[in-house]
């Protein structure tokens, strides 16, 4: 078998039960990595784990709500027991945009969205940092909403803005272990998170109806496939040592 770019590496992907997270797990496994995945929904996560194992990949798979520290800690412990160390951590799990104006928002739902988008990735990073190998890579999933205000998406935007800052803080704290931490913005992607397909919850249907097509609100944007986003994450996660850290990489098609 030819040399693959991630042979011998261990990759952790959160939110891997569907969408871009699932595509990353598939692509990175195909590149030879051992994979640790988590998500909240067993009916989505289990088939991904089975598929990867069927392809010959070593897999740790666990049901985790990343906003629950105990669950995140247990996931990290299980991964540490199975693999020596983690070489790539992909903080992909996120919560969708709330669509209410602040004035009408449900305070607890608002707080939950912020928590999932920034405290969750912090919990995951906190739990895994001591297991990261020298020269490891961390990719945090940002959003254009974290950089530019969008009405009625405040909780999501605030969470993603916080995650952007967390990325920079991690970069300047971890560089001396050769660990590089970058933010990645996929832009609109044909998943259940696609802003103009929130009325649908079936990803295949979303891909069929909207895949590759322009955004109704911002015609320069188009709904990318999860596989396209995964390709770019692979590129970002495999930059040579001494490459970018604390930076933002984006597939958007309008200024962030």
């Amino acid at each position, binding site marked *: 078998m030819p040399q693959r770019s991630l042979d011998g590496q261990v990759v952790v992907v959160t939110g891997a039960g569907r969408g871009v997270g699932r595509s990353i797990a598939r692509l990175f496994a195909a590149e030879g990595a051992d994979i640790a995945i988590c998500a909240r929904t067993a009916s989505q996560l289990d088939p991904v784990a089975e598929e990867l194992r069927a392809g010959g990949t070593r897999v740790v798979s666990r049901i985790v709500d990343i906003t629950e520290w105990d669950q995140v800690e247990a996931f990290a412990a299980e991964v540490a027991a199975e693999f020596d160390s983690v070489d790539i951590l992909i903080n992909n799990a996120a919560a969708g945009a709330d669509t209410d104006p602040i004035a009408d928002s449900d305070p607890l739902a608002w707080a939950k969205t912020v928590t999932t988008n920034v405290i969750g990735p912090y919990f995951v990073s906190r739990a895994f940092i001591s297991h990261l190998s020298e020269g490891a890579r961390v990719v945090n999933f940002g959003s254009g909403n974290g950089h530019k205000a969008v009405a009625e998406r405040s909780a999501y935007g605030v969470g993603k803005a916080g995650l952007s800052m967390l990325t920079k803080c991690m970069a300047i704290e971890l560089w*001396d272990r050769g660990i590089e931490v970058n933010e990645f913005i996929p832009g609109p992607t044909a998943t259940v998170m696609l802003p103009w397909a929130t009325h649908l919850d079936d990803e295949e249907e979303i891909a069929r109806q909207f895949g590759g097509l322009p955004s109704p609100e911002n015609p320069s944007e188009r709904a990318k496939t999860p596989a396209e986003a995964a390709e770019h994450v692979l*590129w970002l996660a495999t930059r040579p040592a001494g490459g970018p850290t*604390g*930076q933002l990489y984006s597939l958007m098609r309008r200024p962030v």
Partner: protein
Amino acid sequence: MSELSGQVALVTGGGRGIGRSIAIAFARAGADLAVCSRTQSELDEVAEKVQAEGANCLTGIVDVTDRAAVERFRDDLIQRYERVDILVNNAGGGLERGVVAESDPDRWRRTVEVNLFGTYLFSRALLEHIPDGGKIINVSSGMGLKAANQSSAYNVAKAGVHMFTECLANELWPRGIDVNNLIPGPVATSTFNRDAPGQRTPTEEIITKFADEPPPQFPKFERVKHPDEVGELALYMATRPRGGPTGQTFSLARRPL
């Protein structure tokens, strides 16, 4: 087949440093090149390297702030290649260092002209010759996003380049032309080393000098790179499939910007 075979790329400020590395990387990937700068001897050396990769190379002496010179080079390029698929606005530099209160107004203006007006002029002159699906790469700087000390002209100029990229991206997406910023971070070039005109410190010497610690104006986690590393990133940007990122920034910096 090579990634850029059949394509034509123009690199401004391509006689040395980052521009030279980009030109050679593109030639290696199969593109034909047009390279301009102000120094013929440097252009001759780059042309030799480009041709050694089996690519054609048109060279021209151009001051990027001189509209007539830019348009002459454009005419030569169109006569030779008929179009340009990839435009790399790389020419730039900081000519005025020091506090605003003591700055030389002519050098301050000239810095803005070389970095920003030059980028505009080349884009303006070439736009109608870039086919749908082409690429524009503007070499920007972390200095365009965050003020440094005693380099206001360069900070302001690169901030302008950054915004120009975003404006152009908004205008050109209907033609499928993607326009992005490239932030190299500190790179071992004569500009970075503040060499006097005509003086060229060898790349390896600069890298060795800062191998253990970056220069004092940068945090300890920055790294002085080889210009070829920037050439590789530019090649990645130039080879994104149509519909890829536009109006975005690709940065090799190691400090949050």
